[in-house]
């Protein structure tokens, strides 16, 4: 279970507070959606969960399976099962995608105390998963994300997610930039990972994704706080009314 308790975080550089007391619980086996206006702090929350050091946690705690992960670096969090699918995946020139994937999978396996994959084992797994997610062989040969289209980058994120077998998946606008078919493929990929000991946090602006990945709960994040929580019908409601209600609240 993911427990976020009164989480306050600010930008390390200039001290601007972005997260102003977030309380949220996602039990294992559940999928929760986070929606909210631009600039409300959704990506910031995702980054703080993954351990990005551009942000400082000033109060509160994040517990994963009962253990605080705040003191852990991003790589150790990944080993504990945290995975963030980036809203804007980075392009890394010069690093071959396959080299990266292998380093990543084996680093995580090593930290989890699982035997590292041999080259043939690794290739077999990547090829199978890439085919499932419609990631072309040609993409695997290129440097990581370099020159990939927006949609291709998102598929690559999901490929990484399924390779790393995380227990806490945070998807930050994985649907934006994807065509309708790709949304289905990506959603299928995510749904495959749904299991009783996995929790998922899906950040999205569009109700459409939630048709494919049915959430157990929907939270509205605005002004650095969860303003409202409801069932999946809340997403439909927001589609009609927008966020005016929450904007007013802050004023």
């Amino acid at each position, binding site marked *: 279970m993911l427990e976020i308790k009164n989480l306050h975080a600010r930008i390390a550089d200039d001290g601007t507070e972005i997260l102003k007391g977030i309380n949220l619980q996602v039990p294992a086996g559940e999928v929760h959606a986070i929606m909210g206006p631009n600039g409300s702090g959704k990506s910031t929350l995702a980054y703080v969960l993954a351990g990005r050091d551009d942000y400082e946690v000033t109060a509160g705690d994040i517990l994963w399976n009962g253990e605080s992960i705040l003191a852990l670096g991003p*790589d150790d969090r990944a080993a504990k099962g945290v995975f963030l699918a980036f809203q804007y995946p980075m392009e890394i020139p010069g690093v071959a995608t396959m080299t990266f994937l292998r380093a990543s999978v084996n680093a995580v396996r090593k930290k989890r105390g699982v035997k590292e994959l041999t080259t043939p084992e690794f290739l077999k797994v990547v090829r199978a998963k890439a085919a499932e997610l419609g990631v072309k062989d040609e993409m695997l040969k290129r440097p990581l994300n370099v020159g990939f289209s927006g949609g291709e980058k998102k598929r690559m994120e999901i490929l990484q997610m399924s390779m790393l077998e995380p227990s806490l998946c945070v998807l930050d606008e994985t649907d934006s930039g994807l065509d309708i078919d790709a949304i289905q493929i990506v959603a299928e990929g995510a749904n495959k990972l749904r299991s009783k000991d996995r929790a998922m946090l899906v950040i999205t602006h569009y109700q459409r994704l939630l048709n494919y990945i049915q959430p157990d709960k929907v939270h509205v994040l605005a002004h650095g706080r969860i303003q409202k929580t409801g069932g999946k019908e809340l997403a439909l409601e927001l589609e009609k009314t927008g966020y005016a209600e929450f904007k007013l609240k802050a004023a």
Partner: protein
Amino acid sequence: MTITTMKTKAEEQLAEQFARTAPLLPGGAWVPAARRAAFQAFAANGLPHRRIEAWKYTDLRAGLKEAFSPAQCSTRTFDAAALATVLGPDLAQLPCIRVVIVNGRWQAKMIPAGQEPGATYHMGSLAAVLGQPDYDWMELCFGVSTISDADTLGGGAVVDPVMALNSAFASDGVVLSIVEGARLGLPIHIVSIVDADAPMATATRCLIKVGAGAKAEIIESHVRLGESPAQATAVTQISLEAGAEAHHVQHLAANGSSAHLGRWDVELAERAIYRGFQFTAGGGLVRNETHVSFTGPDAKFDFSGAFLGRDRDHIDTTLVVDHSTTGCESRELFKGVLDGHARGIFQGKVIVQPVAQKTDGKQMAQVLMLSEDAEFDSKPELEIYADDVACGHGSTAAEIDGDMMFYLRSRGIPEDQARALLIESFVGEAIDKIQSEAIRTSVMNIALAWLRDLPAQAAPLKAAKAATPNKARE
């Protein structure tokens, strides 16, 4: 007004060494006079200093505190096993035609069966032919060359000091010519080894001609054994005749207390294609200066390099590309990684003469700074006198990208490994410009070893001493 400066200790030592050793240097006929003229030309200006524009960032008057004595012969023989200790395993095993120069003297050639000189190439020791009747053309190579007025901050044309010192002291080197239309099946690897138990200086010269339509791969390694500091001048003059193609790689690895003053002169006739690469790992004080001239139209010059510096390494890449005919192309990509107090310098001058229409020249220098104390100076210069040209240059110096680091770490890759991956990929992008896969892989492995701080030469010094007798063909 002329200012007479006091001679530095190094300059005095050089004068004494020249007087003492010149009579022992190879070459009859015109050679002694050419050496004297070269030394006098050097002595008139002395070591270059920061007021000479071309040497602004590499002040030899300050950097060379003393001039080491000319190297003594080495008694060690370098066979394949011994070579592995200085070249690293990959380069040592490279299938090639190899010449080994030790302490400035031709020691051996190692030529696989069926690749003997004759039909496709000729190769021999410079010392053996210098001043011989059929080799008068070399006089031009040993002539005094000057740096232009512009490069001396108005101080008048001065002698190129590296060229002059090398002409004065050159003890040996390689004379290589690739026969017209020939395609060599193997690269030619010229290995210069300094085997120093005490500080010493070497001066080597390679003269290379690639005949019309011929194609060749040439690698020059400058490596060393032993911990004593060394100083080297190393000059390579390579000319490509019409339609010739040459791939020319320099591999330079030394320790922090040495000095390497290198100069390459590249001359391209019409439609010639030259691909050069200079790899420098450490080395103390390094100057790699390259001059390129085009004697015919539509030639291509593609030049790249990677330099790795740490501690107090000082690595200077200076390039002068003179486009004096039409339709030629020049490309330069240099990448550096600087740690500690290392300093990198990139000076790239592209001149496009009025006649050189349709010139296409692009230049890029990028440096990754691993420490706050590292320094990178970049001086790109475009002098364009023609109107129908496409020229550009750029240079960047950046730290490791924090966003990229986070991305890699969020995928479970530990911090050290993520950092290494980013540095290696940065350097790898330059090394990828080496076309031959075998050479590219060798150079990349040497770079990786350096970056991971493992000595490239894994075997201890003893292994070389105990080496089995030289199996090379003479």
